[in-house]
């Protein structure tokens, strides 16, 4: 029984990058109670070492083969291993880099929480799962990572498990993720049936020979997985609810890394997607729809974290649309930049929430720029980056996607992209003005601001009082560090095709090529100007509604008016949740109830009970025959004898 891993051929660096976070998770879980706070330092250390190793191997991953580590083989065609090529290295760097910063930030954020050790064990486990997902060299390994990441997000969303809302949100997230898993499983079966192996190299080598419907089927399967994980419509409902988890979790998982797994999946299977234009079309359209829906929902939220969650949904819509139209470099670039500025926005929001004693509703904030200048600066840079303000990272990646959509012959998507950029600008600045300008509304009674009373038992204070505060630098340092890439991350793509970004990926994605129709004859700078016009329009509208002096003074009644007049469609997020509940959840429970209450006891058991009853009756009947009277017995015997004699008489004469 050789269960030992095939260590020899593996490169030790790749294995240690992969296993360090797992070791961290196990160590922290077992030694949890003793460690308490320094569990945070330990956890961050493990992730940052992994990050350093990944950086060290930057060169090695660049060349074609990259690092390889075959692990274990289940059977014919089921060989598992790790690989580090350009795409997975980028993701690894972001996961361990941004992850490490968020670990440090979490030390401060969770300073007073009793279960801080368990939190860091889960965070390390999450990093390990995400690394499994991106480092796998085969599709089943990818699915293993996919499932483990879903599990880690389940643990972290439901971290404060005594909150029923958190528990429900965690379960919803996990079940929708499993729904995505079965999509990928279907793709695995199709690939294995066609190629006899699960390794990416074999699949892509034989990709040419696949029939058109088969490629489409595989792509649909994969995309279902991507939709669930990257919260695309209609499987997006879990993302806003996932904000029940602690803010660092939202930053790391539901902003920077996990939700972008769908983008990674499509990028990884680029050779397959290029073969099927209809699949690409489908991906692009769904991406666009999610982009627009996310933006519209973003306008209607009052919880600061839900605004950012909806904006994440919208930005991922951008990335999916980007890879959907074939602009892989642009899509991945937007993932790269988005990881930084969205993490920064979330951590900024975390600072606000931490400072205001866990208050998350923007209507209770206001006028914070005077008291928290550093946070204001961080949030401002983040906002400028996300709306695509020139010379900020978002500008380069977002405009690239919008233009590539046009260049690849999708005029409708081009306009959708541009419009969403405008709406993004509007709701981001709406958040800025409401939170940082005007006067502080913390002490205004909820009723005045039309805030619904919290659900009973929904939220129990978790930390036992502010015994002592974490050093503020511990939380602000990561945000400061993140500000740098938020600004300069876009500069990597200056220089078009020959820029370091495009050279880095080389021919990994093959050539997207023009997909449909003849491109409109407008140059790139024209589309950029058009987008900027829409963005400034968005900012102006936001300023008029929330920013100008009269609005700031009458903020309380304005906000109350807006909250009351909020259209129900938006308030219930297009009723998607209700739709899923009535269409799937309720009938399943009803059917299950019918089965266990009616079919089993009455239909099936009844049969057996009747047979047993009949046997019992017969038994009683024979008992009744025994009357005890001698003459009755004699009669029975004589009757029996008569039958015998009759038979033998017939027999005798017949012979």
């Amino acid at each position, binding site marked *: 029984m050789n269960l030992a891993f095939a260590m020899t051929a593996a490169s030790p660096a790749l294995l240690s990058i992969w296993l360090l976070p797992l070791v961290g998770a196990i160590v922290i879980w077992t030694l949890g109670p003793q460690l308490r706070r320094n569990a945070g330092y330990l956890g961050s250390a493990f992730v940052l070492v992994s990050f350093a190793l990944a950086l060290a191997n930057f060169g090695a991953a660049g060349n074609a083969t990259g690092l390889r580590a075959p692990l274990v083989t289940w059977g014919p065609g089921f060989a598992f291993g790790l690989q580090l090529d350009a795409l997975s290295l980028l993701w690894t760097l972001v996961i361990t880099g941004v992850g490490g910063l968020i670990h440090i930030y979490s030390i401060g954020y969770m300073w007073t929480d009793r279960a801080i050790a368990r939190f860091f064990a889960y965070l390390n486990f999450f990093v390990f799962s995400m690394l499994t997902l991106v480092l796998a060299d085969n599709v089943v390994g990818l699915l293993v990572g996919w499932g483990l990441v879903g599990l880690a997000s389940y643990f972290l969303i439901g971290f404060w498990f005594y909150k029923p809302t958190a528990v429900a949100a965690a379960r919803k997230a996990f079940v929708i993720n499993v729904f995505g898993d079965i999509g990928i499983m279907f793709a695995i079966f199709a690939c294995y049936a066609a190629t006899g192996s699960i390794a990416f190299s074999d699949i892509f080598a034989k990709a040419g020979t696949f029939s058109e419907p088969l490629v489409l089927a595989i792509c649909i399967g994969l995309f279902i997985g991507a939709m669930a994980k990257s919260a695309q419509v209609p499987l997006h409902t879990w993302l806003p609810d996932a904000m029940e988890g602690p803010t660092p979790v939202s930053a790391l998982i539901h902003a920077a890394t996990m939700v972008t797994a769908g983008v990674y999946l499509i990028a990884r299977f680029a050779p397959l997607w290029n073969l099927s234009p209809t699949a690409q079309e489908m991906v692009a359209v769904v991406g666009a729809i999610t982009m627009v829906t996310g933006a519209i929902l973003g306008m209607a939220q009052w919880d600061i974290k839900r605004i950012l969650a909806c904006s994440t949904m919208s930005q991922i819509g951008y990335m999916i649309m980007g890879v959907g139209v074939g602009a892989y470099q642009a899509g991945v670039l937007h993932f790269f930049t988005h990881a930084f500025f969205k993490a920064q926005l979330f951590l900024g929001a975390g600072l606000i929430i931490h400072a205001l004693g866990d208050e998350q509703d923007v209507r209770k904030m206001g006028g914070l720029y005077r008291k928290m200048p550093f946070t204001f600066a961080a949030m401002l840079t983040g906002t400028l980056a996300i709306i695509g303000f020139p010379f900020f990272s978002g500008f380069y990646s977002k405009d690239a996607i919008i233009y590539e959509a046009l260049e690849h012959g999708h005029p409708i998507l081009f306009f959708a992209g541009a419009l969403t950029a405008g709406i993004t600008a509007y709701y981001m600045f709406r958040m800025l003005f409401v939170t940082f300008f005007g006067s502080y509304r913390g002490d205004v009674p909820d009723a005045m601001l039309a805030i619904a009373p919290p659900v009973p038992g929904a939220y129990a204070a978790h930390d036992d009082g502010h015994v002592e505060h974490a050093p503020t630098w511990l939380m602000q340092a990561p945000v400061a560090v993140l500000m740098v890439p938020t600004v300069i991350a876009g500069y990597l793509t200056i220089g078009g095709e020959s820029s370091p970004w495009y050279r880095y990926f080389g021919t990994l994605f093959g050539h997207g090529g023009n997909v449909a129709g003849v491109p409109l004859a407008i140059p790139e700078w024209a589309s950029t100007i058009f987008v900027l016009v829409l963005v400034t329009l968005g900012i102006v509208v936001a300023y008029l509604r929330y920013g100008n002096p009269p609005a700031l003074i009458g903020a309380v009644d304005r906000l109350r008016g807006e909250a009351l007049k909020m259209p129900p469609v938006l308030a219930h997020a297009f009723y998607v949740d209700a739709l899923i509940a009535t269409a799937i959840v309720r009938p399943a429970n009803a059917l299950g109830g019918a089965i266990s209450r009616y079919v089993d006891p009455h239909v099936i058991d009844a049969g057996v009970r009747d047979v047993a009853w009949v*046997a*019992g009756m*017969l*038994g*009683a009947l*024979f*008992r009744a*025959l*025994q009357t*005890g009277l*001698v003459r*009755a*017995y*004699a009669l*029975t*015997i*004589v*009757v*029996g*004898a008569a*039958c*015998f*004699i009759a*038979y*033998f*008489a017939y*027999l*005798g*004469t017949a*012979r």
Partner: protein
Amino acid sequence: MNTPQLVIPYVSADYAALVPTFVVAVTALVVIVADLLTPKKMRRAANVAVGIIGLIAAGVLALQGWGHPIAAFGGAFVNGGFAIVFQEIVIVAAVFSLLMSYALGREDQSGGAIALMLWSASGAMLMAGAANLMTVFLGIELLSLALYCLCAMSSRPGARESALKYLILSSTASGFLLYGMALLFGATGSVALSAFANPPASSALFDIGAGMFLIGICFKLSLVPFHVWTPDVYEGAPLPVTAFMSVVTKAGTLAVLARFAYAALPSPHGAAIMLPVWIVAALSMIVGNVAALAQTDLKRLLAYSGIAQLGYIVASLAGTTAFGLRYAIFYLGAYTFMNLGAFAVVALLSRDRDEGSQLTSFNGLGYRQPILAGAMTFFLLSLAGLPPTAGFTGKILILASAVNAGFVWLAALLVVGTAISVYAYFKIVRAMYAQTTGAPIRRAVVPASALPWACVALCAVATLVLGFYPIVPSDVLPLVK
């Protein structure tokens, strides 16, 4: 015309064939004498001891006759392998019944009872070798008459009633049997079974005669239409007598049936004659087990179970195949051990007055006497035909012989019967192991006698060994000179 000399045509070899039967009969006399001589206290022990010694001696003597079969008294009594095997079974049953009787019954009657039991055993041994009508009739009547008295010999209320019922019904059946013999004799002109093989003078007479003969036999085997007497008599009679009766009457009658079916019937026509017997056997399997479902008294339950078990054994004879007979004999042996084992456990549970045959006396036995409960479970497993017991192997053999002889419908009915019987037997297992629902009747086991325990142990070991190593007697084809 010379004066008729008194020439006894029989040589010493003829008498040698009957020696085992004589030894048993004489032992009965010795028991009566021993009962007279020994002091009151020692009387029961002495009687049982003498009885068992006599039986064992007879058993050993019978075994010596194994290799060389002889037809004594001009074919009246054929002492071959077939007869010896049945005689051994009868002796074993008698020994175990004596072991059981040690714990029961009134002091003063033990001498007479044991003597009667030995005489009925010798009657059964006579039937085992009977090869002509007279010996058969003599054997059956000797067996039955002794049993009528035995049934009555107990102060229990039902005893005398069961004796009366048994007498009236059994005599009626003997009447049918005798009338059948008369017709057979009339049709063939001879009383020897061997004479029936050649075509009879008038086939009508022969068939009706054979029919009535079989009625008598089926009554004794308590097969279904003729089984009505069995439950009442088994319940009424004292426990050791019931145990003895449940095996010995069936063993002897089975020997007669086998000899009649295998050797005495003209082959082509024989099958048609025996067909009603196979049908009756099938009926017994089903009715026996179903009726057992509703029983609460253990002796009645074992009565119905005996009916069903005999159904299995006769089913094995179906088609009168050679291996069918051998497996029937093996299953009879297994039946003897498991049945007597079960009766021995009931004997251990009974106190002087009321016998422990009520189901309630088994409540919670699993905790009070785990070993006894284990033994009882083992016997019930065997009766139900579940592994690893002799019953299981026996049932497999019978299934195989029935299927091979072409009676697949009989095999299927056998499985159905077994399925029903499991519920009946496992009611007792449930009673033993169920959490003490009703108040457990403190039924102390009679400490004094170690003999019933020996009987339980012997039966259990036999059932286990036979289960794994079925010793099937080989050359037992019944010889009819």
